[in-house]
């Protein structure tokens, strides 16, 4: 390994913690930043939930803090509600879950798990983070724009998004965030292809690394179309082009002044071309995390490692061919709808295969019910519910009724919140000892776990019912539609569970920061795991491994027949009986 030694011996605080080139520091920067953004997005939603449960009533405490335009007399205005909705979605997806799953977990663990000293391009890695943070802050600053933040849904459909306030800042932030993501995907791909330790063939990589590999390909190829589409929308807003504005558009009695000739549906196609692979980006790394935790805590190899890898690749490939199932009622011809219907049904097959492998991995295992394992176990049924509720949405006939109802919201929140976020939280408990050399407190972990799972189910199950009853989504006042009155009580249920979920995060936040300094110290490999990240000190020093490890076996050699010890680390020399 070559080092480009600078003259100074001890780096400054700035070099060590702010503009670090070390993937581990950058990973932790992503971790803390994305958790903060998740909390912000959650906060926005908590405001929305008050309005949904008690439409027209002043928001307690916070109502007074908002200006008269946003919340006259403390009652949320319609525009403010829309802004909160659009920003909640945007922040959670682009500033929260993906940076956490990919930027934090991927950055920290990928080089370690493949035996590399760092990412292929450390400087570019740093740039990725330092584009993400300003991009995210800019996105939040859109709340200060005249007219308020972006308020056309996270989907930003024109013509509304062209004439609504706040959208320009949203688009500019997206361009910055997409750039950050593209640099990151290039880094992940080159690192995985080129920098695996000797003996670490692709088929000896942990499932988590495969998940990150497929995710990186999705991000690399799917984001540019959204970037191009955003540039076109920016042109429409700033330079008054008509890429998306049709001819003779009449708004509130006045003809739109642009040249016309554009197509609003063009945006929908380009947006969903990214946004569908994006949901697999939300899901695949968490599935990778769950796989690692389950293998470790069943003390047996994952069932169907190759099946799982092929399934992830199949999901990646198919994810590019299903996007228009978000547009079934946009006026597509039945022939085209059928095409996307078929591809959507096909993509459910590898997803089920993955979940089945995880379930079969439990069979015959010596299961250790520690805190990370509880999260991983909860992922399985909850994600399954989320996935299954997607089927009526993927089938055109039922989607006609369910599209744009609360059923959709229930579906995707089950997958992302009680699926991905549960897995990501479990990953924190699992890898915290590696990041900080200390364990998180178990009792607080149990409280966090049970409280979160119960509340998540409590928030989103009512939504499935409300959707079936015909409640439209993105409604500022649900009671404005008479048929919603019968299910309005469910809104109240969701709201209280949402506030409960917020309360149950407090033990987690306290646990995280307290354990950083006062948690029980752990040895290098407290979970007795086989993968390479556990074969170095906690936390690993710069360069990760004292010398380049050599890999002698696959990633899940647990309870190998003929050995006394129930795990066989990947880099342990091939010798005798231990």
């Amino acid at each position: 390994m070559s080092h480009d030694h600078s003259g100074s011996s001890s780096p400054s605080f700035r070099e060590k913690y702010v503009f670090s080139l070390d993937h581990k520091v950058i990973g932790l920067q992503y971790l803390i930043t994305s958790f903060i953004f998740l909390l912000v997005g959650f906060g926005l939603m908590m405001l929305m939930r008050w309005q949904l449960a008690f439409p027209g009533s002043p928001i307690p405490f916070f109502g007074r803090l908002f200006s008269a335009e946003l919340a006259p007399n403390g009652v949320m205005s319609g525009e403010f509600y829309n802004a909160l909705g659009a920003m909640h979605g945007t922040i959670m997806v682009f500033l929260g879950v993906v940076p956490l799953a990919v930027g934090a977990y991927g950055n920290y663990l990928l080089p370690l798990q493949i035996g590399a000293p760092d990412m292929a391009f450390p400087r570019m890695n740093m740039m990725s983070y330092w584009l993400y943070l300003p991009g995210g802050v800019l996105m939040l600053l859109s709340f200060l724009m005249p007219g308020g933040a972006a308020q056309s849904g996270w989907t930003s459909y024109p013509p509304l998004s062209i004439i609504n306030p706040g959208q320009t800042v949203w688009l500019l932030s997206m361009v910055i965030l997409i750039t950050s993501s593209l640099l990151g995907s290039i880094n992940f791909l080159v690192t995985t292809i080129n920098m695996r330790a000797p003996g670490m063939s692709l088929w000896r990589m942990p499932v988590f690394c495969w998940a990150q590999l497929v995710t990186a390909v999705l991000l690399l190829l799917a984001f540019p179309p959204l970037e191009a589409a955003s540039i076109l929308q920016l042109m429409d807003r700033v330079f008054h082009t008509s890429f998306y504005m049709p001819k003779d558009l009449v708004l509130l009695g006045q003809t739109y002044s642009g040249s016309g000739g554009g197509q609003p549906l063009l945006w929908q196609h380009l947006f969903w071309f990214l946004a569908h692979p994006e949901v697999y980006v939300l899901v695949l790394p968490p599935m990778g995390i769950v796989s690692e935790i389950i293998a470790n805590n069943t003390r047996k190899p994952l069932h169907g490692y190759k099946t799982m890898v092929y399934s992830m690749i199949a999901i990646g490939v198919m994810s590019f061919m299903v996007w228009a199932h978000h547009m079934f009622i946009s006026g597509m011809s039945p022939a085209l709808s059928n095409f996307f219907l078929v591809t959507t049904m096909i993509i459910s097959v590898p997803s089920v295969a993955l979940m089945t492998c995880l379930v079969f991995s439990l069979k015959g295992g010596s299961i250790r019910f520690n805190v990370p394992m509880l999260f991983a176990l909860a992922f399985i049924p909850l994600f399954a519910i989320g996935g299954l509720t997607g089927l009526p949405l993927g089938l055109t006939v039922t989607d006609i009724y369910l599209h744009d109802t609360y059923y959709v919201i229930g579906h995707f929140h089950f997958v992302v919140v009680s699926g991905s976020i549960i897995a990501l939280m479990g990953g924190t408990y699992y890898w915290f000892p590696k990041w900080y050399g200390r364990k998180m407190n178990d009792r607080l972990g149990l409280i966090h776990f049970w409280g979160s799972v119960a509340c998540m189910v409590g928030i989103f199950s009512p939504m499935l019912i409300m959707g079936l009853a015909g409640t439209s989504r993105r409604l500022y006042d649900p009671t404005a539609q008479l048929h919603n009155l019968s299910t309005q009580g469910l809104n109240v249920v969701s709201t209280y569970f949402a506030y409960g979920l917020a309360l149950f995060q407090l033990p987690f936040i306290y646990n995280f920061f307290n354990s950083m300094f006062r948690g029980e110290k752990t040895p290098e490999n407290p979970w007795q795991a086989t993968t390479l990240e556990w074969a170095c000190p906690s936390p690993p020093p710069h360069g990760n491994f004292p010398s380049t490890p050599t890999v002698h076996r696959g990633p899940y050699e647990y309870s190998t027949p003929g050995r006394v010890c129930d795990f066989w680390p990947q880099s342990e020399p091939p010798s005798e009986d231990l």
Partner: protein
Amino acid sequence: MTTIAIEQPPTAGAISNAKLGVWLFLASEIMLFATLFTSYIVLRLGSTSWPWGWDALNVPLATLNTVILITSSITIVMAYAKAYDKDKPGFQSWMSLTILLSLGFLVVKAFEYSHEFKLGIGPHTSVFYAIYFTMTGLHVIHVLGGILVNAGLLYMSSRSKHWEHPLFLGRVEGAGLYWHFVDIVWIFLFPSLYLL
């Protein structure tokens, strides 16, 4: 922990990190421009009429720009050859020529744009001009990026710390790959907007 960037040589026989990285970046750029071309096709085929390139735009100037860009592709190939030979003056001459030609491209483009603006034509005028300004504008931004990279390499070649670095040639090659890609985008853009 220090902030030293660790460079590990890739597995033997593999593609260098820089080259693989640049090709992956180009893959994302292919998707970016493919989206714009697709939008162009969709908007054009969906419109009732479309101006002839010769009537609406300055074809001779754009032809000149095509010649300039293709020439700059060959000059950057020569720059790479000289870098391969470790011929510093040779590299610097050919790279400077490449940068000069690129600046020439921008000058011609500025001339074209200002003429259009003087006539009151802008992206808002019609969908045709919206596409024209957006796509050539984005291409111009990519040309600018290429100029910055090439100028950076030119500057680096004057410092022996960089010129002697074993990875320097790979960086020149990477810059060349990016520059040829910019040329390829123009090869499609020119007939699509101006001639057809």
